[in-house]
C-alpha cells in the first residue's frame, strides 16, 4: 500500500494540502447545512403561529 | 439667480450648511484635532527614527485623513434626517443629486479643506521633505473630495439606522483603498524626487468619476433609506 501512503504524504506537503482540502470541506458543508436548519426552523415557527392564531 | 432655479437652490443649500456649521465653530475643530492627534501618535508608537518616519509618513498621514473623513461623515445627513428636511429635499422639484452635491461640497469645505491647511505641519512632524509636502497637499486636495463623495453614498445608505456609524466604516473603507494607494504612493514617489504626473492624473480621474457617479448613487440611496 505504498501508493496510498505516498498519496497521503503528498510529497512532504501533507499538512498544507490536507488542511486546505479539510477547511474547504468544513466551509462548504457549513454553508450548505445552514439553509437546511433554517428552513426547518422557519416551517415549525410558522406552523406554531398558525396554530396559535387559529386557537384565538 | 431667479427664485426657484436650480443654481439658486444649490447656492442656498450650500450657504445654509456653511452657516449652520459656523454656528458650532468648536465642533468644526474636532476632525482636525483628530487628524493631528492620530498622526502624532505614530512617532510615539513606532519610535522617532527620522528615516523610519519619512518612510511611513505619507501612508500614516493619509490613513489619518481617511479616519478623520469617516468620523466627520456621520453628520452629513443626520441633522436633516432628524428634523425632516431630508424628506423635503427628496420632495423638491430639483434633482436630488444636485442638492446632494451642495451638501457634500459644504461638508468638504468644513472638514476636508482644513486638512489641507494643517498638512504642512504634519509633514514636518513626520520628517517629509519639501517636494513631498507640496505633493501631499495636492493629493489631499484631489483625494479628500473623493472621500466625501464616496462616503456620502455610505452615509445615505445608513442614515436611518441606529448603529449607522459602525457599519459606515465597514461599507466605506474598502472603497477608499484606491485613493489611499494612489495618494500615499504619490507622496512617497515625490519624496524620492521622482515625477508624480501619473499619480496625479489617476487621482484626478478618480475625482471626476466620483463627481459624476456618486451624487446619483447618493440620491438613490437617500430615497431608499427614507422610503
Amino acid at each position, binding site marked *: 500500500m505504498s501508493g496510498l501512503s505516498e*498519496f497521503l504524504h*503528498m*510529497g*512532504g*506537503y501533507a499538512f*498544507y*494540502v490536507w*488542511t*486546505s*482540502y479539510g*477547511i*474547504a470541506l468544513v*466551509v*462548504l458543508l*457549513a*454553508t*450548505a447545512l*445552514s*439553509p*437546511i436548519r*433554517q*428552513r426547518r426552523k*422557519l*416551517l415549525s415557527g*410558522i*406552523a406554531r*403561529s*398558525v396554530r396559535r392564531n387559529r386557537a384565538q | 439667480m431667479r427664485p426657484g432655479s436650480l443654481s439658486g437652490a444649490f447656492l442656498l443649500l450650500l450657504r445654509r450648511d456653511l452657516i449652520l456649521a459656523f454656528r458650532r465653530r468648536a465642533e468644526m475643530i474636532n476632525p482636525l484635532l483628530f487628524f493631528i492627534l492620530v498622526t502624532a501618535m505614530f512617532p510615539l508608537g513606532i519610535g522617532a527614527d527620522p528615516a523610519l518616519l519619512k518612510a511611513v509618513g505619507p501612508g500614516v498621514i493619509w490613513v489619518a485623513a481617511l479616519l478623520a473623513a469617516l468620523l466627520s461623515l456621520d453628520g452629513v445627513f443626520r441633522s436633516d434626517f432628524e428634523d425632516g428636511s431630508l424628506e423635503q429635499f427628496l420632495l423638491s422639484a430639483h434633482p436630488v443629486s444636485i442638492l446632494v452635491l451642495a451638501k457634500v461640497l459644504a461638508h468638504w469645505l468644513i472638514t476636508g479643506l482644513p486638512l489641507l491647511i494643517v498638512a504642512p505641519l504634519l509633514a514636518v512632524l513626520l520628517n517629509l521633505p519639501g517636494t513631498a509636502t507640496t505633493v501631499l497637499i495636492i493629493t489631499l486636495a484631489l483625494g479628500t473630495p473623493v472621500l466625501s463623495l464616496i462616503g456620502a*453614498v455610505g452615509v445615505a*445608505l*445608513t442614515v*436611518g*439606522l*441606529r*448603529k*449607522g456609524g459602525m*457599519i459606515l466604516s*465597514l*461599507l466605506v*473603507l*474598502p*472603497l477608499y*483603498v*484606491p485613493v489611499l*494607494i*494612489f495618494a500615499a*504612493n504619490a507622496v512617497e514617489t515625490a519624496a524620492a524626487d521622482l515625477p508624480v504626473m501619473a499619480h496625479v492624473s489617476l487621482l484626478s480621474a*478618480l475625482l471626476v468619476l466620483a463627481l459624476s*457617479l456618486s451624487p446619483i*448613487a447618493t440620491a*438613490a*440611496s437617500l430615497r*431608499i*433609506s427614507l*422610503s
Partner: protein
Amino acid sequence: MITRYFHQLASPPYFYRIAGRFIPWLAVAFALFTLAGLYTGLVLAPPDYQQGDSYRIMFIHVPAAWMSLFVYMVMAGAGSMGLIWRMKLAEVVAISSAPIGASFTFLALITGSIWGKPMWGTWWVWDARLTSELILLFLYLGVIALHNAIDDKRTAARATAILALVGVVNIPIIHYSVEWWNTLHQGPTVTKFDKPSIDVRMLIPLLLMAVAFKLYYATVVLMRSRCEILERERNTQWVKELVES
C-alpha cells in the same frame, strides 16, 4: 411564451416548488463533478516540477477565487433587477448569494495563505490577488451587515442592491490599484499562482472543480432563496397551506 414563463417563475410559490425539485439534481451533479475533479486532481495529475505536490491546493484556491467574483456579479446583477423591475425574486436571489460569495472568498484567502507558507515561508503575503480578495471579503461583509441592520426586507434589499452596484464599479478599480501597488512593493519573488502554460493534466481538474463549485452555488442559492421566500411570505395564504400539509 417565454415572458409568460418568466412571469410565472417570478411568483414566489411557483419558484419555491420548482427550486425544490431542482435542488437534489444539482446536488448530485455537484457531487459527481467534485469526485471527478478530486480524482483527476489529487490522483491523476502529476507533481509540479517546482512546487511538488503542494500546488494541488490550486484546485480549491483558484475555483474559489473565481466563484468569489462570479457570485458578486450575480449578486449585483440580481440586485439591479430587483431595483429596476421590483422583482421580489431577484431581491431574494441577491441577498441569498451574499453569504455564499463570502464563504468562497474566505476559502480563497485561507487556501491562498496555506499555499503561500511552503512557497514563500510566511502565512500571509501582500500579494496583489490575495489583497484584492481580502478587500472583496470586506465588500461582502458590508452587504451582509447592511442587510441585517435594516428591518424592512424590501428596503434592505434595495439598499444592498445599491451597495453591491457601487462595489461592482469599484472592484476593477480596486483590483488595478492593488496590483499596481503590489508591483511596487513586491520583492524579486514572482507569484507562481498561474503559469503561462498549464499542463492539460492540471487544467482538467481545475475546470472540473470550477464547474463543481458553480453547481454548488446553484444548489445552495436555491436552498437559501427558499428560506428567504418563506421568511418574507410567512403571512400569506400559500405558506400557511404549505405548512399544514
